[in-house]
């Protein structure tokens, strides 16, 4: 396995990912094939890379022409509203956005020390970096999700605006995901060959973290522990069998759907309705 093959896989990944999201005439046929090409293009092996190229050509040929986007104006609107929402979230977090990098960097530091102080075979190094990389991403997601839950609690009125629960969940996931990209670069610097399972399991982790923001207030430890438990379990499993990351990736739409359902089910005005505005009641904050 050579780093050059990973670099060669990048344009294939870009093209097949593009085909995955573009609205085409034969979506049902083209999308699974281009998705398979996406996965294979990250393998770093010339046989898989060749198969990925063949699959990409098949997907492109079978896709047909681009179908007119029904909701292009809706997508544009949702993108710009997501940006507006992101700017509000960044204002809420400010420098606190840096705090989740600390535990993630700590894990990556430990991974580097482990690699530097042990005589490991390339295979063992590969597994160790997968474990450390996935765990550091999970750490980052857990802590940033908690910061989001604390600094940007549910905003009841915003739920009356024309955007969907899925959109709100995805916006948070994008925000968490974009902030976690530096961690992925660091994992790549440690061992580039080990990046693909971490990248493949990245979307489900990010969506899971976005989901826990909605459930943070149900638990004493907020949003942290749920993502940590799931992230640690995922790290161990992917370290043992890297291909399991593809199974996790396949769960992303389910996590998105479940997250949207959680977002809908929140009783956002419960606290206010149960306690009203306890003006003049000095014990109001200690009420249960």
């Amino acid at each position, binding site marked *: 396995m050579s780093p050059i093959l990973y670099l060669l896989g990048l344009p294939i990944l870009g093209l097949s990912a593009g085909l995955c999201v573009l609205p085409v005439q034969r979506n049902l046929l083209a999308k699974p094939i281009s998705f398979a090409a996406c996965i294979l293009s990250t393998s770093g092996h010339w046989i898989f890379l060749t198969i990925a190229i063949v699959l990409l050509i098949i997907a492109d040929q079978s896709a047909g022409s681009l179908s007119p986007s029904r909701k292009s*104006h*809706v997508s544009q*609107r949702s993108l*710009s*509203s997501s940006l*507006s*929402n992101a*700017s*509000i979230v960044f*204002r*809420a977090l400010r420098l606190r956005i840096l705090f989740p990098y600390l535990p993630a960097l700590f894990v990556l530091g430990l991974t580097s020390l482990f690699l530097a102080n042990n005589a490991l075979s390339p295979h063992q190094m590969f597994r160790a970096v997968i474990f450390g990389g996935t765990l550091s991403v999970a750490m980052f997601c857990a802590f940033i999700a908690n910061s989001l839950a604390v*600094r*940007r609690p549910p*905003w*009841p*009125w*915003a*739920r*009356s*605006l*024309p*955007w*969907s*629960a899925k*959109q709100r969940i995805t916006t948070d996931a994008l925000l968490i995901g974009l902030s976690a990209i530096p961690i992925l670069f660091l994992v790549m610097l440690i061992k580039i060959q080990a990046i693909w399972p971490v990248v493949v399991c990245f979307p489900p982790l990010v969506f899971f973290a976005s989901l826990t923001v909605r459930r943070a207030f149900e638990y004493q430890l907020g949003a942290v522990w749920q993502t940590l438990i799931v992230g640690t379990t995922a790290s161990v499993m992917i370290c043992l069998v890297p291909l399991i990351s593809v199974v996790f990736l396949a769960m992303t739409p389910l996590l998105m759907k479940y997250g949207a359902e959680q977002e*809908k*089910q929140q*009783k*956002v*005005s*419960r606290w*206010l*309705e*149960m306690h009203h*505005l306890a003006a003049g009641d000095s014990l109001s904050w200690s009420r249960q």
Partner: protein
Amino acid sequence: MIRFQNVSFSYEKDAPVLFGIDLEFQPGLTMLLGPNGCGKSTLLKLASGVEKPDTGRITIDGHDLWQDEVEARQSLAYVPEQPDLTPYATIREILNLVCRLRNESSEKGMDALEFFGLRDLASRTVRELSLGQRRRAVFAAALIGTPRYILLDEPLEGMDRKIKDDILSWIQRHVDAGAVVILVSHTIEPFVDLTSQAITIKDGSAFLYPKIAGNPEQKLALLDNLAKGII
């Protein structure tokens, strides 16, 4: 038309606030009346999509509020009693968000702020505003676009006299244009002439008075009784 079909809702388990609600809100002004804590604001939150019913469904123009979320909320404007705006956003950011979601230019947002005398405060965050200013900011958001479903919870509370008059004429304009306006207010008098139907809530059930007719004194007497919980 906003339609409630067998809607039930509770904040805590085994303590239903509303149950088995079947209602249709027709164009015109509907007053939601009843004593404190009977569930008027909760009904408004359910109609606006802030809270999701435990059972039953709510449709706006035939779109399910929790299935076709975007379509159902497209022409909806909700002004809550408590202006629960996210504290770290500036007024400009909130209005920009609303403009983008309603497909309106951001100038519309600034015009709405101008209307409520908040233009100079646009770059302030919500936590730097007084309660009255926050309420005006939420109302400014309601002015953006051409809402056909307007849900107002105590719209005149905390507003100065000029803005009260402006709000009343804004409501009048929308009622005349055929909008569905649902209003919760303990101040009944300013809305008596505009009211076409009334709803009161007692023990979690809603009672609809579809045609409020008669002279203003008779209408006021009926609405006053409903507000006191006398059915």
